[in-house]
């Protein structure tokens, strides 16, 4: 089965030519139709940057140095803004973390929804209204007709996030990139939103790229996952495979240091040290300085991403 989205050897960073400093290095993965792919990592690992690269939303000082993002045969990184705008919001859309800052506080919900429709089709005002109410109902917002007239600040965090989801799903995209959509929400609201996303996904048969640092969320919502560290993809596999048997020491460390509800663990195992700074990336494997399994070669040579099986891959000399 061909991949819907293919990210290939992406290298993204700051500066030009000799002064180029890579932040994302050799990032590759695929997203298949209808699946939920989890992208896991801690802050600074590059997961958000990957999403922004796919959407063409990188800030001005960042650029794609090499690599590609294939969607339907086209390399998104090579498209102009006009061409990208045909795809963004329609075939690929994004849900952001902070609904308050990603919704325009000066416009009503109705206005903002209408914009999505206007941009991607020739609908009449009546049709737009109908479609807006339809999508708001789908995301389980009570009194959708009333809500069209509301402003973002009049809604709760959970509601705003649903509006964001509505906007992202309005044109029935093939892929939705969800960048930490529930991190800023309370745990009971998070449960509601995850439940909703689940339902919508099977309804509309869309693929979801779920970016998060919460292993619990990944375990519950995703089928496959990739783990990122310091700008690289270091492990890939189905959720069952990776949780059962993490191959990369970082993945293992991450799982052991996450407090798990119901586990009888008295003390969390920690990963010593901190994520290396951009200016000071270690020569060999980026995780070596913090790794308890590091050997000589780890400090000398950066390991390549190896496919262990059709679904599994890991970037490590000493796979566990």
């Amino acid at each position, binding site marked *: 089965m061909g991949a819907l989205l293919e990210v290939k050897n992406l290298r993204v960073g700051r500066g030009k030519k000799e002064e180029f400093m890579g932040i994302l290095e050799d990032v590759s993965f695929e997203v298949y139709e209808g699946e939920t792919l989890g992208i896991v990592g801690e802050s600074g690992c590059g997961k958000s940057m990957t999403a922004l690269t796919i959407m063409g939303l990188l800030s001005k000082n960042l650029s794609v140095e090499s690599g590609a993002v294939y969607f339907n045969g086209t390399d998104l990184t090579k498209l102009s803004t006009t061409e990208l705008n045909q795809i963004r919001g329609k075939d690929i859309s994004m849900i952001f973390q902070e609904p308050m800052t990603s919704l325009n506080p000066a416009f009503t919900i109705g206005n903002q929804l209408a914009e999505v429709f206007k941009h991607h089709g020739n609908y009449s005002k009546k049709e737009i209204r109908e479609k807006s109410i339809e999508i708001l109902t789908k995301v389980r917002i009570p009194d959708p007709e009333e809500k069209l007239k509301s402003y973002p600040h009049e809604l709760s965090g959970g509601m705003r996030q649903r509006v964001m989801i509505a906007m992202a799903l309005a044109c029935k995209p093939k892929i939705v990139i969800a960048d930490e959509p529930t991190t800023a929400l309370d745990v009971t*609201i998070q449960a509601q939103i995850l439940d909703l996303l689940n339902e919508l996904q099977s309804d509309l048969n869309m693929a979801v790229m779920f970016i998060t640092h919460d292993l*619990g969320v990944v375990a519950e919502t995703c089928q496959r996952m990739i783990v990122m560290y310091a700008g690289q993809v270091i492990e890939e596999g189905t959720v069952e495979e990776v949780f059962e048997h993490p191959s990369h020491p970082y993945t293992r460390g991450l799982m052991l240091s996450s*407090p798990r509800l119901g586990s009888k663990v008295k003390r969390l195992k920690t990963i010593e040290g901190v994520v290396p700074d951009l200016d000071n990336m270690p020569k060999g494997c980026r995780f070596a300085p913090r790794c308890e399994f590091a050997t000589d070669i780890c400090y000398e040579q950066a390991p390549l991403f190896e496919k262990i099986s059709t679904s599994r891959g890991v970037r490590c000399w000493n796979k566990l």
Partner: protein
Amino acid sequence: MLEQAIKTEPLLTVNHLKKHYPMKKDLFGKKNEVVKAVDGVSFTVYKGETFSIVGESGCGKTTTGMCLNRLIEPTSGDVLFEGENVVTYSHKQMKKIYRNMQIIFQDPYSSLNPKFTIQRIISEPLVINRYGSKSDIRDRVRALLELVGLRPEYMNRYPHELSGGQKQRVGIARALALNPKLIICDEPVSALDVSIQAQIVNLLKDLQEQLGLTYIFISHDLSVVELISDRIAVMYLGKIVEQGTRDEIFNNPQHPYTKVLLSSIPVADPKAKKNRERIILKGDMPSPKNPPKGCHFHTRCPFTTEICVESYPEHTSVTSTHSVACHHYKSLSS
């Protein structure tokens, strides 16, 4: 840990603590709306234990924590610290209390004065409380840094040169400076990455054992709370809905809200999801401006009946250590 705690004396007792914020006044100066952030909270914390207060945003847990040391002025109620009611103390009188009650804040990025060196930050409580000579203070700062796992070189650095986890360690060192008996930890790891969280949680546990500290641990993260707590209070919209030992709360939750809370937490185990029965709440948390009459939770509770709408349930004891505020808890626990 807990067994010791029950045998010891209460360190802090809170009785019917309330914090109400009057909102808009109408033309005649009468207060129209009142935000009842904390609406009658009572609990006791024993020496040597970790007492956690959990709840989602808006439940009043942070406000409760800040009322304990008067960073926020309580509207009414008592806070008895080692027998003394500190609610009415002046700022000067509180100074004496502060030596024994300290606080660790949530955001490592804003809890340290960016213009102070680490040394100055940690020595500030010592200076204010006239700990000793300059060299005494410097020695103590050095010892504190070592205690929290930071090298002495850090004394001359500025907060912006440290990582989030390191900043939080400085915050902990500062809280420990005066050798307090009680430390209020206000979401101390929420702003940190998972692997750093683990480091800090372990540190807090170690320090508690080493120094015989008592913690009040405020958090929304139940997984962390399970790890570190002896006893737990669950708050919803300004009130405590359930209180008990850690095992009681996690293994035998009585209040519907506690059950929902526990079932909402995503578990990092792909196999578990098939067996889980999750209760999904409808709607959002009501505003603390106009809490629902009767039981505060009745608007979202899947088991609401008429009595829930009409009257607020009193706290009833399930065991000597476990209490719950629900009309139907008996019939719901099967």
